[in-house]
C-alpha cells in the first residue's frame, strides 16, 4: 500500500505531547493583560477621574473618583450609553490635546483651580482651537456633569456609588429596613 499513513508509536507520542502543550499555550494567549476598562483606555480613565472629581470633589466624604464614577461611565458606555461613545472619545481627546498645547501637561496634572477654570470654559462653550468641533465642549461638559451625578447618587449596581457612599452621606438606610405586613408574631 503506497499511500499508507506512516506514523510510528514514538512519533505519535511526540505529536500528542506537542499538541497538548499547544493547547496549554493557547490558554496563555488568552491570558494577555486585560484592561479593567470596557471602553475607556487607561489614559482616558485617568483623565476622566480628574474630570468627575471636579464635579463632585472629595470633602469629609469621598468624591466622585473614589465613588467609582469613572467605572460607572465606562460601564454605561458599552451599555445604554453606547450612543455617547464618540462624544467621549472625541471630547477626552480634545481636552488632552488642548492641555498639551496650552499647559504642556495633562489635565489631571493641572492644579485644582486651573482645572476648575478649564471646565468653566467648557461649560460656557468657550473652548477654541482645532480640537473642538462646534458645541462639543458644552455637550461633553453636560454629559460628564450628568453622568457624574448619576454614578454618584445612583444604585451601586450600575458601577458607581461604591460602598453606597452617597447613601451614607445622605443618611439613607440602604437597603431600606422594612418588614412584611406580618399579621401576628
Amino acid at each position, binding site marked *: 500500500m503506497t499511500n499508507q*499513513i506512516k506514523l510510528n508509536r514514538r512519533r505519535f507520542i511526540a505529536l500528542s505531547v506537542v499538541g497538548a502543550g499547544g493547547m496549554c499555550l493557547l490558554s496563555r494567549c488568552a491570558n494577555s493583560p486585560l484592561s479593567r476598562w470596557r471602553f475607556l483606555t487607561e489614559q482616558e480613565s485617568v483623565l476622566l477621574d480628574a474630570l468627575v472629581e471636579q464635579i463632585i470633589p472629595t470633602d469629609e466624604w469621598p468624591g466622585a473618583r473614589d465613588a467609582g464614577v469613572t467605572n460607572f461611565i465606562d460601564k454605561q458606555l458599552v451599555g445604554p450609553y453606547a450612543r455617547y461613545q464618540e462624544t467621549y472619545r472625541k471630547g477626552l481627546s480634545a481636552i488632552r490635546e488642548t492641555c498639551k498645547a496650552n499647559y504642556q501637561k495633562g489635565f489631571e496634572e493641572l492644579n485644582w483651580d486651573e482645572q476648575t477654570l478649564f471646565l468653566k470654559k467648557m461649560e460656557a462653550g468657550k473652548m477654541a482651537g482645532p480640537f473642538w468641533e462646534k458645541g462639543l465642549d458644552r455637550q461633553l461638559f453636560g454629559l460628564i456633569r450628568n453622568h457624574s451625578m448619576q454614578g454618584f447618587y445612583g444604585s*451601586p449596581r450600575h458601577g458607581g456609588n461604591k460602598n453606597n457612599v452617597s447613601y451614607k452621606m445622605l443618611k439613607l438606610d440602604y437597603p431600606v429596613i422594612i418588614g412584611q405586613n406580618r399579621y401576628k408574631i
Partner: protein
Amino acid sequence: MTKNKIIKRVLFIIPFFLIIFLILFGGFYGYWNSASPDKTCSSCHEIGKSVDSQSKSSHRNLHCKECHGTALSNGIHSLKEKGMMFVNHVKEKDSGNIRPSEEQLLEVMTNCQRCHTSEFADWTSGGHSIDYQHVFLNTKHNSTEQINFDCLRCHGMFFEGTVIDVVEPLNTKGPWKLKDGKRAAMPAIPCMACHQIHQDGLPHSRPDYAGAKSIFYQKQDTGFVAGFYDRHEKIYLPVSQLPQLNLWEGERKVRVSDDPVMRNCVQCHAPNAMHQAGTSDDRTPRGVHEGLSCMACHELHSNDARKSCKSCHPAISNCKLDVTKMNTSYADAKSPNNIHFVACADCHKDGIRRTRN
C-alpha cells in the same frame, strides 16, 4: 481504492483522532484545573472581578474548582454550561454582570458542607433551611396575607423570575401550587443569603503559641463572614455596610445592639416603615432584654435559643430565680409575655420591691 481499504482506513482514522482529541482535551483539562486561576479562570474578562474578590477572601486558599466544580463534575449539564460560556465569550456577548444562577448557587452550596459540616448540620436543623413549598404553600399565611413580589426579598432571593413565576394563584383564596414542582424541596434561604463566599476576610491560621494573647483577645481579626444579598440590586452587602436599625417605641428610641451581625437579621425580621417596635416581623429585644443582640440568645446557624437563658442567668443566680420557668413565651408558647419584649412591669404591675442587700 477497494472497499476493504476504505473500511480499514476509517477504522484507523476514527480511533486515531479520538485518541488525539482525548490527549489534547486531557492536557487542557488537566492544565485548566490545576493552574492558578490567574492563568485560567480570570483569563475571561467577566470572571476577573470574581477571581480578584476571591483572592482577598477567607477562601483565598481554595481553587475555583473546589466550590464551582469542573467542566465534568456535573456531567452533561456542566459541560453544556461551560460550552455556553465559551460561545458567549467568542460571540463577545456582554456578560458584564455575570453571576451564578440559583441552580448553580445550590450546586456550590453542596460543596459548602464538605468543609462546613457542622454549620451545615446546624442550618439544616434550623428554620432558615426552609424550602420553597413550606414558604409559598403555607395556607395560614397565604390566606391571611397576600403573596407579593417582596416575599422574594427574604425567601428565594436568588430566583431569577418574579413571584408570579413561583406560585399561583396570587390571591388569598388558594389553593396554591408551585408553578415548577421541582422547586418544592429547594432551599429558600441558602447559605449565600447570609454569606458571600468571596467576601473580604482572612483564612484562619494557627496562633502564635508563644504569645498567649494572640490566642485570645489579641487574636487576629479575620473579618465578618456575614452579609445580606440584596435581591433588588443583585449585589451583596457585607454586614459592615448594612445600616443599623433605628427603632422607636412610641416616641422613645429603643436601644438597639450595635452587633454588626444583627444588622443582617433585621433586614428580614424588620419593623414597619415607621420603624415602630414590635410591628411587622420585628423581634428586636426590648424590655428586660433591650440592647441585646439576636446573637446573644440565638445560635448562628441553627438559630436555636433553648440553651441561651443559662448563659446569662445561671442556676446560681443572685436573685435565686429560674428564669426558664417564668411566665414567658420561652416557657409557654401561649404566654402573653413574649420573651423578645417582656418587661419587668408586665408581671410586676405594682412595681418592683427593692431588695435588701
